[in-house]
């Protein structure tokens, strides 16, 4: 599913560990998701800050998703939880700027879970499509 008629990008920040292994699993299992998704791999989701997420929107991203390790599974103790604070803060800023804050999403995922990764991507694309229909 591509964003209708537009070559817009959807940025997905994944951590290097469970989130990325799920992305790879989706590829190995041959599961499809939108070609608009541009994954960006980070060492840990905890390295993100609101400035970087806002920059994606400033650059014209149709949506942004943060995907990290399942709770309690972060390789760096609490990067996934810190990312949740960054997520909440950035959503509030987006809301102030008049953006639909649901265009920024946050999910935690177990290792090697390709189908769950695809579900997350589909959910994100659905939100973006719905947001477009409202306009």
């Amino acid at each position, binding site marked *: 599913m591509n964003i209708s008629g537009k070559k817009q990008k959807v940025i997905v920040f994944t951590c290097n560990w469970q989130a990325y292994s799920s992305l790879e699993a989706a590829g190995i299992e041959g599961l499809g998701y939108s070609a608009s998704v541009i994954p960006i791999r980070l060492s840990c989701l905890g390295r993100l*800050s*609101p*400035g*970087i997420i*806002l*920059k994606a*929107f*400033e650059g014209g991203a149709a949506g942004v998703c943060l995907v990290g390790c399942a709770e309690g599974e972060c390789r760096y103790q609490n990067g996934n939880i810190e990312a949740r*604070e960054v997520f909440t*803060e950035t959503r*509030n*800023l987006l*809301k*102030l*700027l*008049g953006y639909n804050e649901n265009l920024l999403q946050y999910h935690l995922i177990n290792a090697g879970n390709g189908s769950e990764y695809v579900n997350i991507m589909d959910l994100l694309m659905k939100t973006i499509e719905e947001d477009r229909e409202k306009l």
Partner: protein
Amino acid sequence: MSTFNEIIQSNRAWLCLDCGKCSSVCPVTLHLAEGYTSPRLLVETAVGCGEDKTLEDPLLWSCLTCLRCTEICPSEVQFSAFIQDVRQLAQKKNLSGDCTHSGMIQTWIRMMKDPDLKQNRLDWIDGDLKVARESDTIYFPGCLPYYDAAFTDLDIEGIEIARAAVKILNSLGIEPMVLENERCCGHDQYWQGDMETFRQLAELNIEVISQSGAKRLVTTCPECAYTLKHTYPEQFGELDLEVLHLTELMAESRLIADPNGNNDSEVKLATFQDPCRLGRFMGIYQEPRDLIQGIGYDLVEMKHNKHTSICCGTSCWSTCGQANKSVQVERLNEARSTGAEMLITSCVKCQIHLKCAQQGPMTAEENEITIRDLTTLIAESI
């Protein structure tokens, strides 16, 4: 845009006497351990070595433009304005200061340049606050809603300041309008030399302000007040309305009737941090002091106060490092050594920077001072 030689001439840099007074008061210079530089040396470089060397000087970006050196200069070298002009040249060459907070603030400000942006910035106006769709007075909260969302970890008074301001205006019988689509005033972009962003923001602001038909604009941010009152007219011609910092309006309207009205038997000591734009830039020193005493505090002054007051350590959300933290820690120590239990300021940025320093390398004991905004304190007392 001026050439480098014009900048040297218009800001009187070539009249520098090399006396070093500027360097002895510069808050940043004092804390530079490595790569020592100072306003005097920077001006000397500009006059003697030309543009390229000047653009390499780290003080070009670490200067707080606090105006302390400019005020003390016997030759009236306009150092802060000189820095602003040279930064414009630097921006043209794609040079800029180190961004802080991973560029978050600069990014949302650039996002505000979108003329079609429909912000959602008035959620803080709840039932008790009276605002009008049309009024003679605009209340301009500036970036307060954004800071409130961005600095949750510092426990700052962000949106509380805006609420307090409307409450105070209401108690003066004013129902202000709050603009749905005001933008950042562009103060930081101007002082960073990013004139293109500044112009775009200013044009959008001037449009909504002039459409409103208001006769007066009140703000709680000294930077907004200075920019709207002085920088906009300088750059884009006179605005057809009066711009006031809320402190001026409160003092003018005698909101707090008796400046020495301390009827409380319990003596509460407080000290005041003069924001650079309110103090040195706009000359408002006495008004906040009268108000503080009027609400029952005994005001004790820090060693550096009024004209000699020290900046809160960082400006334009740019270049915040060890030297800046040292400026802040020193300022907090100065505040504590007065014996005051509360440090009052009237700029949200002073509050953010000083509270940030309290979370840094200071010991728990050194930390013991409450930082509050004058607006919220007054709103509580009325």
